């Protein structure tokens, strides 16, 4: 069995491979920090002697490394690869993309130093200090130049769903970051409006940046790996525009019952329900992935399932009756892990398993490490989201009962949080195996004596039609 490797794969591989190398490095570093933060949640004395490693800082460090280190790098790498392939020619402006990749990671490292020294902002998904925003903005734009030139200069006039989502994410992140930066840092809004802007940014970072990047990968890989056309593809346009127009309006759902004008959470609740249409279209289009074989398809199918489940849970928690039990509990964290880890990360994992052999022209170094990563990731994500949801259920029940003292609530949630730590450890192990496998595979580019076009093992690829 021989898989297709296009001319643009090898000619355009340097920027995506550099971004992926950085992404996986941050994934392992973020996982380590996430594990420390998770242990500190149930054992607060752990590493309490070092101010740099107290929970407030480690939690912000883990989130920053995960979102801006892993997800952003991986999303950009795969977006470039998808846009380059769909363009039908090698990526242009690769030097811009390479420079952007280097400076983006310098910015992320500077942000982590800032957070570690106490400059974290406290805003969800925007914990990085304001002084690194400019470098992130320009470096992201430099990488985006290459992708947007591939999109606008494509040889075939037709455009696909992967195009829309990838190009959309490339445009939208600089826009939402610039608005959030001006309104929260350079000329900050006052009082409660800060919470509204911060909530808006956190939601947009997911719905208008990370989710489109993940969907671009899923829409590209699923039909190619399964060898089947996407079902009900004519609805894909509606799904895309629904996400673009409605996605940014759902941020106010985190402010239910808060001291904000009532119309803000109301609009968010209605938008969350409307967004279910987009989710339904995604499920309709990509359902073929659930019957596909191969590691890449399995990862992506799991990610799509988590994406759909996350959207349904988001909409359900907008109801006041549900929010009364879930607000101010670990449920927010469970939802975030389901979205960022369960949906976006697993789709990126699938995309990387599909793309790297085509970029390098070599099969993955170890099938065993691939299977270990798949097993540990799926088990870890299910355990992590499940245990945090369990902790939230216990916490919500106890918080509603005024007879239960705070130390009792902490004692009741402890077993669930220990399970979450076990899940973090499993995920970290899986990610280390992925990192090792990636580095080993990427290094095989140098070995010219190996056959150039790979023959993919059945465990990693669906057979071609």
């Amino acid at each position: 069995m021989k898989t297709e490797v296009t001319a643009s794969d090898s000619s355009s591989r340097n920027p995506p491979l550099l971004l992926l190398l950085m992404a996986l490095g941050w994934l392992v570093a973020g996982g380590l920090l996430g594990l420390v933060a998770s242990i500190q949640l149930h054992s607060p004395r752990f590493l309490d002697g070092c101010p740099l490693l107290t929970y407030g800082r480690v939690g912000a460090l883990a989130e920053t490394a995960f979102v801006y280190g892993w997800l952003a790098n991986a999303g950009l790498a795969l977006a470039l690869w998808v846009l380059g392939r769909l363009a039908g020619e090698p990526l242009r402006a690769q030097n811009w993309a390479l420079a952007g990749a280097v400076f983006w990671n310098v910015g992320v490292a500077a942000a982590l130093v800032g957070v570690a020294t106490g400059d974290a902002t406290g805003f969800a998904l925007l914990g990085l200090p304001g002084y690194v925003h400019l470098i992130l903005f320009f470096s992201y734009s430099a990488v985006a130049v290459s992708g947007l030139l591939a999109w606008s200069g494509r040889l075939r006039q037709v455009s696909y769903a992967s195009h829309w989502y990838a190009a959309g994410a490339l445009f939208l992140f600089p826009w939402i970051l610039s608005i959030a930066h001006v309104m929260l840092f350079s000329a900050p809004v006052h009082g409660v409006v800060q919470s509204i802007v911060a909530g808006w940014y956190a939601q947009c970072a997911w719905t208008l940046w990370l989710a489109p990047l993940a969907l671009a990968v899923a829409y590209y890989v699923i039909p190619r790996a399964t060898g089947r056309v996407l079902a009900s593809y004519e609805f894909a346009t509606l799904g895309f525009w629904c996400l673009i127009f409605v996605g940014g309006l759902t941020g106010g759902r985190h402010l239910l019952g808060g001291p904000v004008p009532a119309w803000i959470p109301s609009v968010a609740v209605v938008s969350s329900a409307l967004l279910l249409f987009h989710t339904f279209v995604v499920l309709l289009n990509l359902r073929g992935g659930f019957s596909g074989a191969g590691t890449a398809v399995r990862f992506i199918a799991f990610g799509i399932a988590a994406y759909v489940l996350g959207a349904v849970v988001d909409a359900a928690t907008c109801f006041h009756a549900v929010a009364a039990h879930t607000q101010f509990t670990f449920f927010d964290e469970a939802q975030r892990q389901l979205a960022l880890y369960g949906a976006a990360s697993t789709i990126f994992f699938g995309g990387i398993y599909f793309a790297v052999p085509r970029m390098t022209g070599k099969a993955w170094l170890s099938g065993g490490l691939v299977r270990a990563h798949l097993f540990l990731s799926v088990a870890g994500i299910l355990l992590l989201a499940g245990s945090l949801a369990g902790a939230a259920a216990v916490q919500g029940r106890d918080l509603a009962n005024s007879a239960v003292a705070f130390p009792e609530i902490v004692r009741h949630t402890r077993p669930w949080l220990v399970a979450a730590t076990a899940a973090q450890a499993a995920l970290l192990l899986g990610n280390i195996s992925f990192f090792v496998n990636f580095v080993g595979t990427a290094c095989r580019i140098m070995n010219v004596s190996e056959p150039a076009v790979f023959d993919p093992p059945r465990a990693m690829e669906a057979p071609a039609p």
Partner: protein
Amino acid sequence: MNDETRTPPRPVSIVAVAAIFALLSLFWVLAVEVYVPHRAPAPQNEAPENLPKELAWKATPATRRAYLAELRERQANQAQSYGWVDKAAGVVRLPVGRAMELVARDYGARKQ
């Protein structure tokens, strides 16, 4: 796919790159040009009219910061120097470090 088959990418004009940067900076420019100049000042940052002289330090963030800096300097001096608090009643002020030594010595003497 080996290196001999690699195709060079088409060249890029600097105008195209500049146009993309301009497009991506659109909302930054809009926010700075439209939002910032028309931003309503926060009530706590506006100097109120007819403020009594003794409350003048509360007028603006700058006066509040200056007052706070002066207050902290005064407190730091007081915590590190000797002086009278109430000469008639015989109450004195002494550096915190010296006060700690005296308290520790007194407790030590009492234990013995």
